[in-house]
């Protein structure tokens, strides 16, 4: 052990101190530019933060892969086996005529859109893949209105940082940052493969975030809130998923 001289020890200590304080400064800067995910903390935090920060810095505007019509999956897995709750069933009995998407928070004109109102806007479609954390995937055509267009209608305040969205199922909610909220492929979808969106795939209304894993695409969406502080929602981790051990940022 005599190989380690005092000089080496001091140099090593200085390097370690510089490294740690450098990390501290880096964390401050990253926080300022919105590069820290809301669920930072825990043993995976550094990895999650590095993934999120590097993808936001390098691939903020990248487009999810789109597929030719011939590659659409024959049977898109309808994984919603558990029947939705009573509130859903009574809306379903009336053909979702009373389904509303309420939009509030940091907006000029809070609004509640019916499905018919959403469908009255020019529709967009994309043929993208749903990739589940569990390993399965399918390719489908998704039809809807870009979320950015919905946000334009209500007038988002400039200090907004995230959009939080809720399912009609209790305790099922998610959030995305403005990079994803304004992304041209993030849709409020009401159709699939040229037809209505089936309940098993999240109908009548599902938010599609194709650059992230399937669980960010919340089914049966009824409510959007624009915010600048995710701490106010749930346990402050940004969505319901991190409370169960999943990552908030699912671009992985």
């Amino acid at each position, binding site marked *: 052990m005599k190989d380690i001289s005092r000089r080496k020890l001091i140099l090593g200590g200085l390097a370690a101190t510089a490294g740690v304080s450098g990390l501290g400064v880096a964390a401050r800067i990253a926080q300022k530019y919105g590069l820290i995910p809301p669920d930072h903390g825990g043993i995976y935090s550094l990895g999650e933060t590095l993934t999120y920060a590097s993808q936001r810095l390098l*691939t903020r505007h990248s487009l999810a*892969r789109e597929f030719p019509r011939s590659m659409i999956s024959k049977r898109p897995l309808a994984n919603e086996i558990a029947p939705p709750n009573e509130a859903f069933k009574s809306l379903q009995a009336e053909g979702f005529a009373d389904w509303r998407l309420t939009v509030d928070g940091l907006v000029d004109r809070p609004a509640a859109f019916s499905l018919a109102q959403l469908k009255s806007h020019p529709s967009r479609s994309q043929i993208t893949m749903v990739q589940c954390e569990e390993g399965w995937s399918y390719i489908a055509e998704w039809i809807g209105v870009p979320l950015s267009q919905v946000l334009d209608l209500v007038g988002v305040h400039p200090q907004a940082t995230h959009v939080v969205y809720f399912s009609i199922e209790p305790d099922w909610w998610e959030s995305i940052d403005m990079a994803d909220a304004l992304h041209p492929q993030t849709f409020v979808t009401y159709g699939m493969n040229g037809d209505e969106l089936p309940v098993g795939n999240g109908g009548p209304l599902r938010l599609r975030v194709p650059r992230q894993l399937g669980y960010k695409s919340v089914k049966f969406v009824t409510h959007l809130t624009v915010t600048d502080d995710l701490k106010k929602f749930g346990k402050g981790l940004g969505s319901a998923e991190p409370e169960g051990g999943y990552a908030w940022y699912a*671009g992985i």
Partner: protein
Amino acid sequence: MLQRLSYLFVIFVLFPLVIWTGLAMSPAFVSAFPASVAVMGGQQSARTIHFFVSLALLLFLLVHVLMICVAGFRSRMRAMITGRAGTHRAGT
């Protein structure tokens, strides 16, 4: 010779492949670099390759540890930590 070949294989084939297939399963990474998954035939193929390469790496690790145990656990550990080739003098 066999040992060197297996090291070369692990470092230059298995590790790059496991990193590549791992990235190819990321929807955000693929959105930026679609070719990374296209040459592999899609995310599900990448997932399969990733699974078997990870098994191969696990096997390599197990055999590695087994060989350390066979060659003398204490002397190998000492050699790795202190940098001194394992001589069997007691007390050093």
